[in-house]
């Protein structure tokens, strides 16, 4: 097979020797004829170069420092930053989570654990049939990708911009439902309680009546 290699093959050793000799000729030719103008400008450049280098330093000394004074001066994150999760509520305080476990199914890191349970007439936690009885997110598995948010059919699970989550215990970084639930705003009532936003389901989800108006109407 060796005799089949053509003379122009780059792998041919004789070709490489020729290349080297070419390079030697070229370099000696350039050294023998330096241009006078180029020499002059390079000498000036050599003189100015250290000062020009310090120019960057001096210029930076006059600019405002870019350092963020983090613990004292917390800059806001991007508005859509993926931070800690929040389990949202309806306007009357009932939980939006229906315990469907779609978030747990979507999670690539298996960080979410949900156990659903049935609502009863005596104890109603969410409108509809079911609610999330147990809801846990393991923040040492969660990668904050937001696939759970996309999967949630009732918009019960969203993300906040909170990011200061470091802890020294693995146990404490598994957030439970009471830590994840949104705080009760004025007009909300802690579940379990009946649906307070309308006579039927259609009126409830339309959100026409706020709980305050409802109580006024009853009076």
């Amino acid at each position, binding site marked *: 097979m060796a005799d089949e290699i053509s003379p122009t093959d780059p792998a041919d050793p004789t070709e490489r020797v020729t290349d080297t000799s070419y390079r030697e000729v070229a370099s000696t030719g350039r050294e023998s004829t330096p241009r006078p103008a180029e020499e002059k400008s390079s000498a000036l450049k050599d003189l100015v170069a250290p000062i020009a280098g310090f120019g960057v330093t001096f210029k930076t000394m006059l600019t405002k420092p*870019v350092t963020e004074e983090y613990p004292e001066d917390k800059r806001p994150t991007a508005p859509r930053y993926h931070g800690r999760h929040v389990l949202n509520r309806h306007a009357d305080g009932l939980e939006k989570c229906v315990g469907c476990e779609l978030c747990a199914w979507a999670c690539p890191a298996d960080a979410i654990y949900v156990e659903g349970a049935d609502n009863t007439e005596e104890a109603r936690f969410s409108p509809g049939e079911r609610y999330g009885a147990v809801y846990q997110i393991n923040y*040492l*598995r*969660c*990668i*904050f990708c937001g696939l759970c948010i996309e999967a949630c059919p009732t918009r019960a699970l969203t993300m906040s911009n909170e990011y200061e*989550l470091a802890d*020294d215990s693995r146990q404490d970084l598994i957030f439970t439902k009471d830590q994840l639930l949104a705080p009760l705003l004025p007009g909300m009532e802690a579940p379990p309680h009946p649906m307070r936003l309308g006579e039927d389901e259609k009126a409830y989800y339309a959100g026409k009546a706020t709980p305050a108006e409802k109580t006024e109407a009853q009076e």
Partner: protein
Amino acid sequence: MGIEEKIPDGILLTNVAKLLNTARKNSVWPAQFGLACCAIEMMAVGGPRFDIARFGMERFSASPRQADLMIVAGRVSQKMAPVLRQIYDQMPEPKWVLAMGVCASSGGMFNNYAIVQGVDHIVPVDMYLPGCPPRPEMLLDAILKLHEKIKHGPISGKPDWTTIDGAPYEKPIERDTRSSKSLPVDVEIQPYLTAPFPGSGT
């Protein structure tokens, strides 16, 4: 370690402990253990915008002998685990470990045979930091929480939580997991560092 552990903590020693721990807190030198994408965020913390030097952590030590805090940034593979342990063993007392990111803390989304499911299987971890990767502010927050922990620690500088079944924490963690893996339990467990690697022969 020394005389300070043989004497019970009195009023004088409490003040000495406060002084010592304040000094320790303000000069924690991190050992870099960047393994994956978290290391990029760790580098950002060392840069001008977040500037870890504001907390006395100017020098990211490339040698474990001059380091106090190991920031494990990234996923630790099973092959990297002995290296990590060796770096930790080479660090002088008192020393702390910060598991940065979910992979270092618990394996994260890499729940597979190749990744150690949390570096606390290998070294005692003082602070877990979630995030994938955590933003630089999160790392600063974790470091500040660790500073608080160091400040209120005992005089020896060792965190007291690391005592496992009465054994001091500098001993290698030996957990007998054979019963959960349905392996024979009548064989005595080998110490961590002297145990021959399985399948390596004599």
